[in-house]
């Protein structure tokens, strides 16, 4: 036991020192500050060099092109500026990491939320058509992770037609389309049908992204989505009474 302890200590003391504040705060290497003086106190970082994360180093992302970054930062900032400092504090989101070609175990993804580290990693090149809405989709995942007790998936599943079943996981289905259905029938997009959590995130992101009139119209025409929208609305109010969709 003592020898194991001694070896661990030795490894510990010969590990090179990473005296990087960003790394110390969110444990992601190779990041630089993009903007930290924002009204809602969100801090934006970008990958200066590619980075790998996770115990298996299976999360990978590359450094973005500076011009792309400049354009996408404006879009991300505009969308996230609608969240107040108090709201962000309640959902535990503080750091935005911008990079390119984000993947987990070689599966490309739009974002990776980490509520413990208060961080959302965003792929600035993911799906240009739905980029803005996807930002809010990923924000919902942070909310969900932070307030797991608030969102009851069993309750959510009951909103659907009794014959409907979600897939086992968000990556074990081919239902990944993000186009909004013309006839919704309980789901905003094909991707909504992947898992309850993704369905919630799709509803949330549409509630943020669509105009109030469009949402009201959907509520009138689609009783399932009406229930889902009411559910998300009430749960978000539970987290922050002052939040307005």
């Amino acid at each position, binding site marked *: 036991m003592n020898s194991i302890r001694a070896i661990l200590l030795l490894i510990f003391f010969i590990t090179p020192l990473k*005296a990087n*504040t960003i790394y110390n705060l969110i444990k992601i290497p190779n990041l630089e500050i993009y903007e930290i003086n924002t009204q809602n106190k969100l801090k934006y970082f970008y990958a200066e060099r590619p980075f790998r994360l996770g115990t298996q180093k299976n999360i990978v992302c590359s450094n973005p092109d500076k011009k792309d970054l400049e354009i996408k930062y404006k879009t991300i900032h505009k969308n996230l500026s609608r969240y107040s400092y108090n709201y962000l504090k309640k959902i535990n989101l503080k750091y935005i990491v911008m990079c390119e070609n984000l993947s987990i175990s070689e599966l490309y993804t739009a974002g990776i939320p980490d509520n413990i580290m208060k961080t959302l990693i965003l792929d600035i090149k993911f799906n240009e058509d739905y980029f803005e809405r996807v930002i809010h989709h990923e924000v919902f995942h942070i909310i969900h992770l932070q307030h797991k007790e608030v969102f009851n998936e069993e309750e959510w599943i009951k909103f659907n037609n009794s014959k409907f079943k979600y897939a086992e996981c968000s990556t074990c289905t081919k239902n990944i389309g993000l186009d909004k259905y013309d006839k919704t029938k309980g789901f905003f997009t094909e991707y909504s049908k992947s898992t309850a959590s993704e369905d919630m995130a799709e509803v949330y992101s549409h509630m943020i992204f669509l105009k109030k009139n469009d949402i009201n119209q959907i509520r009138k025409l689609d009783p399932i989505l009406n229930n889902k929208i009411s559910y998300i609305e009430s749960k978000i109010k539970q987290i922050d009474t002052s939040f307005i969709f």
Partner: protein
Amino acid sequence: MIKKIEASLSEKFILIFLMLLGITTLGIYIVLKNQCLFVKNFDPKNITFEKPNNIAILNAPCGNVIIELYPNISPNGVERFKKLIISNAYEDIAFHRVIENKLVQAGDLEFGKKGSLDYGKIGAGKSELGTIKSETDNRFNYVRGSVGLARTFKNDTEDSQFFIILQDEPLFEGEYTPVGKVLYGLEVLEKIKYQRNSEYILRPDFINSFKMLN
């Protein structure tokens, strides 16, 4: 008959050179050995403070570090910090985490006490007072010399550990509970023992004493 041998000029030069080398080596050894040689030690008795009740004096191996506490910014954090200072809890506690020119951290009352250091656990120790809530909403510029309460990755886990930064850290604002700022003696902290290859220190320096001025 013994013939007196005169040293040649070159031999005289070598002798003088060796003597100078010896003196220089001795001088350098003395200077290096005394890491505190050029560090000014501030005596709080010779300084007038605007708010003497909020002044704390930390005595480290190279002298005094004079800190002003900010109860208006973090009332609960400062209250906890003061409580531990007044109870002499920080005496003989290690500066267990030191990053050259970046920060010094101390205050592990459980595993960082002189004589009973636990290298396997240092940094994870607690006081017996429990954790307190983070106070990060008020504006505070984390400039060189700022003092904050350390915590785990989660908020509201501040206890007895604190850090003092040796360079500006704007990202610390809103992240850590600020409790004060060093007014005098930052050079003392720059002399705290550090290691280039690790944040955690083998055979660390210790806080000699930490007291409130009044």
